[in-house]
């Protein structure tokens, strides 16, 4: 299998599906000629043209609202929000409209659409280019939320998301776009929504993560293995619906659970996972369900050698000019 970067897998996922299904359109800011600010849609406009790859005005609510309408009338829009941080102007359209259309019409209408957005820190984005926004949406009945961590999963989950008949938010960790590589088969394959992956087997502790944190969890597990600690690592992949069974099965086996997320700790997605484990695996726990998460400040603080350092751009560069 050819090794691809995370972003290549995503780009291919879109292109493959667009070839297969003429009802798929891509829309968003700068997704056309420029191919997106991260180049996730690079080449799509050249291949599929103006009608199917649409550079929208700088208006996120319009991007989502228009996608809803287009989905109602037979298209499968894949919308890009340039940074997850800028999804907030579209919050009403996502939460009040996309999420509820099927329910409120008693299954009369549906809204098959995907919203892709780069999220996450570690790229010196500070307050407005580093947010994790998943918790705002995993709370919303009617939305599905996907966060892949490998190129293989990214392409496979994107395919499932595009073919899903409900709105799916697909968050891509921007630090992973070019730094993470992995094998991606050429043929059609899909990774089902709603299934976590046990990415490392272990017996003494379950570490649950997603996105970039799924990688960090694996790294940490390898490191503590030297100390004789056997950690099982679960990459959730789909946050809503949560694969509760995989999580609970693992914790019932290991008896300990650590939930890792990059977002602000208080009220983040990991709180739900921790609460579920604490309630439903209580009899198996031999220690508290613990969480490791971002501190409760706007923007991202990153662990650095000298301690927590604010993730902002000036700094690093000055220490390390390349």
């Amino acid at each position: 299998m050819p090794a691809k970067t995370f972003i290549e897998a995503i780009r291919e996922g879109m292109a493959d599906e667009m070839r297969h299904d003429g009802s798929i359109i891509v829309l968003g800011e700068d997704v056309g000629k420029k191919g997106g600010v991260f180049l996730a849609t690079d080449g799509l406009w050249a291949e599929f043209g103006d009608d199917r790859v649409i550079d929208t005005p700088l208006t996120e609510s319009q991007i989502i609202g228009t996608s809803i309408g287009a989905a109602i009338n037979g298209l499968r829009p894949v919308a890009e929000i340039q940074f997850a941080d800028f999804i907030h102007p579209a919050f009403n359209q996502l939460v009040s409209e996309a999420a509820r259309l099927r329910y409120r019409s008693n299954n009369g209408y549906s809204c098959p659409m995907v919203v892709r957005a780069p999220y996450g820190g570690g790229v010196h984005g500070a307050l407005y280019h580093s947010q994790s926004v998943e918790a705002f949406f995993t709370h919303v009945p009617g939305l599905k939320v996907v966060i892949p961590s490998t190129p293989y999963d990214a392409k496979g989950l994107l395919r499932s998301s595009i073919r899903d008949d409900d709105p799916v938010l697909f968050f891509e960790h921007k630090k992973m776009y070019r730094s993470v590589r992995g094998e991606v088969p050429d043929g059609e394959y899909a990774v089902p929504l709603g299934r976590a992956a046990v990415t490392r087997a272990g017996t003494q502790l379950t570490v649950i993560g997603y996105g970039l944190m799924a990688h960090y969890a694996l790294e940490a597990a390898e490191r503590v293995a030297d100390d004789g600690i056997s950690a099982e690592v679960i990459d959730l992949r789909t946050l809503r619906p949560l694969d509760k069974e995989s999580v609970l099965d693992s914790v019932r086996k290991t008896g300990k659970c650590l939930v890792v997320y990059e977002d602000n700790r208080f009220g983040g997605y990991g709180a739900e996972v921790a609460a579920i484990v604490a309630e439903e695996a209580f009899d198996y726990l031999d220690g508290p369900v613990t969480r490791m998460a971002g501190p409760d400040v706007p923007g991202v603080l990153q662990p650095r050698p000298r301690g927590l350092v604010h993730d902002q751009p000036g700094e690093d560069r000055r220490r390390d000019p390349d």
Partner: protein
Amino acid sequence: MAVSDRSASHLGEAVGLSDEQLIEMYRLVALTRALDERMWVLNRAGRIPFVISGQGHEGAQVAITWPLRKQHDWVAPFYRSIATCLTFGMSPRDILTAQYATANDPSSGGRQMPGHYGSREHNLVSVSSPVATQLLHAIGIALAAKVRGTDQVAMTFMGEGSSNQGDVHEGLNFAAIHKLPFVFVVENNGYAISVPSAKELAVEDVASRAGGYGMPGLVVDGSDVLECYRVATEAVDRARSGGGPTLIEAKVTRLTAHSSDDQQTKYRSEEELASEKARDPLPRFRAQLVDAGILTDHVEQRLGADIKAVVDDATQYAESQPDPDPSTAMRWVYAEEWPSEAPPPWGFGTAGGHAEEH
């Protein structure tokens, strides 16, 4: 002139409508009014919990919806769009089952509050409560029509207060850029609940904003049914023929309180309320048709009886329909089967029910 005579009156000829069509338009206006009045009676009698009314708006709604092709074009209505829904294919039974929130209410199966209409069968987009969101849906529908080449037109309706929402700005801009087959109808009744026009906008006409997006903006007297029809026909034709979107602002009057929860005498004077009655489209349209010899006593009697029967039927029907089964309340948060195609070979039938976590 006999109605059965298919030849058009002068009145009809001038706007390109047959006398039958004029009478059908009139019937829809009068039927909506009767249905709406019935809703208030049912509310006062404690049968339905809430009314939000279209009284005063019906003439504009019927006339502007009329040029659309049923079950082909699309409408994203709002809570006052009873006449629009009836004109576009919903029945009085459909409307009243929504008021009663019965299990078979086609709008939402009894899930939504009254006034939130919608019908997949009739290409009427399901109404939600946050105002103005539907504009973007209609525009997305129009985008899909253009991309798919379906020759459809999408129309949406809202009040002048709602037209100040940010979504409207973003949507009109997008529709104009792509010259989408879209018509935006503002039913300007001078109030957003208690807030009068002067505190909602600093200009007389919402339509004066259309030019700033690059689309025509037309103001029409909403009590002049035939003028509304003329303007709408032009807009729909322009949309369908690739000429792009139009904004139509119909000046209407809100003959009732904002809703059954509102006391409008707190913010509208008795004189104002009395003088607004003069802008009621129903008597004006009636007089026009009577003067033109189209609405004869005979026809009027027939229509009156017919309307009463239909409204009574809808009431009795809705009264007698069962409540939604509580056990269904958890359904349709997500797709429960794979509607568009058989699950593909690799088996990602995600829709095969992601049992919601409880």
